[in-house]
């Protein structure tokens, strides 16, 4: 088993021997979701999580901003264990975008500006327009009712909503899987541009080889909650990928282990 630890580099996330299990129901044994996952994400780097459904990709992502509480192991964010962060502050700095875009009642502006009471946020007109521009949306959308947007627009508004908070890292849970191919391509384009433009660290769960290729960084292959392979894409052209399943995946033949 390989893992993605590389302590010499400047890391935004350091995940060490992370395990997650849910308590069993009615005398059932606990359900193991993740076992002993170790991986690093460089500051400004990218990591894509791939693997069959149910392999724990999304759970790993949700451990990074502490929506899930690991049963064992540690996660460090920006040099500090995430248990030492106020979870709310951590989640503003490591912003999660969900698979199905959740927009709240009101306009696009209302959605971008939404925040907990007492939290400072720059929501000046200029900033909102700029942020919409960053995700490739027109500023005139600001006063549109959020429910009237297309799927692709909704997903980009949720990304913009994360960006308004000026995060250090963006966590994306299958950002393109609910979208049709043209919209998915636009979102892939947006995300890869953001990594360059903002020096954002990005961790993305995906089934899309296109997103992996465009994002670069590193690739972590999970099966049944364990790391099967870890490959760096930045230093290596596609040809030098060792793991054959990942080679095939990147060539677009099939998702890695479409079945477990």
């Amino acid at each position, binding site marked *: 088993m390989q893992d993605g630890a590389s302590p010499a580099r400047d890391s935004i996330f350091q995940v060490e021997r992370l395990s997650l299990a849910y308590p069993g129901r009615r005398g059932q044994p606990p359900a193991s979701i993740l076992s002993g996952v170790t991986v690093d994400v460089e500051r400004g780097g990218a990591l894509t999580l791939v693997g069959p459904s149910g392999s724990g990709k999304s759970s790993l992502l949700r451990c990074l901003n502490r929506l899930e509480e690991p049963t064992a192991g540690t996660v460090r964010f920006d040099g500090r264990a995430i248990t030492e962060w106020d979870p*709310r502050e951590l*989640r503003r700095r490591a912003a999660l975008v969900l698979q199905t875009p959740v927009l709240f009642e009101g306009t696009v502006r209302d959605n971008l500006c939404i925040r907990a009471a007492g*939290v400072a946020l720059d929501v000046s007109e200029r900033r909102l327009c700029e942020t919409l521009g960053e995700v490739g949306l027109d500023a005139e959308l600001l006063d549109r009712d959020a429910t009237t947007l297309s799927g692709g627009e909704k997903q980009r508004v949720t990304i913009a909503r994360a960006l308004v908070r000026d995060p250090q890292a963006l966590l994306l849970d299958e950002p393109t899987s609910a979208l049709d191919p043209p919209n998915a391509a636009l979102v892939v384009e947006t995300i890869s541009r953001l990594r360059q433009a903002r020096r954002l660290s990005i961790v993305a769960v995906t089934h899309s080889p296109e997103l992996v290729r465009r994002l670069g960084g590193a690739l972590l292959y999970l099966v049944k909650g364990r790391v099967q392979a870890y490959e760096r894409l930045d230093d290596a052209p596609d040809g030098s990928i060792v793991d054959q399943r990942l080679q095939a995946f990147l060539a677009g033949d099939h998702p890695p282990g479409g079945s477990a």
Partner: protein
Amino acid sequence: MSGVVDLSFWELGLALLLVAVVVAISAKQALGLERDLLVGAVRTVIQLYLVGLILAAVFTAARWYWVLLILCVMVGVATHAAVSRLAKPIPGIYWIAAAALSVSTAATLSYVIGLVVRPQPWWEPQYLIPIAGMILGTSMTSAALAGDRLQADLAARREEVEARLALGFSGREAVQPLVRASLRASMIPTVNGMMTVGLVQLPGMMTGQILAGSSPLVAIRYQIVVVCMQAVATAIGSLLFVRLAVGRYLTPAHQVRRYLL
């Protein structure tokens, strides 16, 4: 006014005969309710007879500790009824329901008994027990409605809650819209009831008082008290229940316990 027309066993038997009509309808329409109906009829007779015997004994004994014991049993039964229909178990929900029902009943009851009705002595079982029963019954129904709605919403709107958490909201803030929806759902029947009270049907207690020979003008005064106390019992009961129950789904680190959904 004259006394009450007492019902003989024969007359009771005739009333029970009505259940036979329901059984016949159930059989004819293949509703499959015949067994439950018969069990229900038998339980109605036995439970009410037992309650009648116990109440008669407590009224004659007139001791505060018997009244207290009865109140405790009532809270216990109401607690069980409020949580037993939840789709999924919530850890510690019995204590939560017992606390919510006890507090809402105690608060409403002390106000109504202490300031409004003022029987002598204040624990006079003839007043305390039926009034407590009505308060508890409303609290129980509304807590059950609120709990049911909360549980269904937490499962159906989980992504919305997690989206708020991911934006840096606290756990309580993230579930606030769901809490509000549950409270509304639990209070709507009471509010609707206040709108039509007396117009569609005479409330049970008022009917009882009129049948027992009270003047309708006395009966409606009691009914006004009852409607008000039921409204406040609904509000306090479901508010406490939902606020405490939603806490079971949240962790101090502002997470949702997904395995409970």
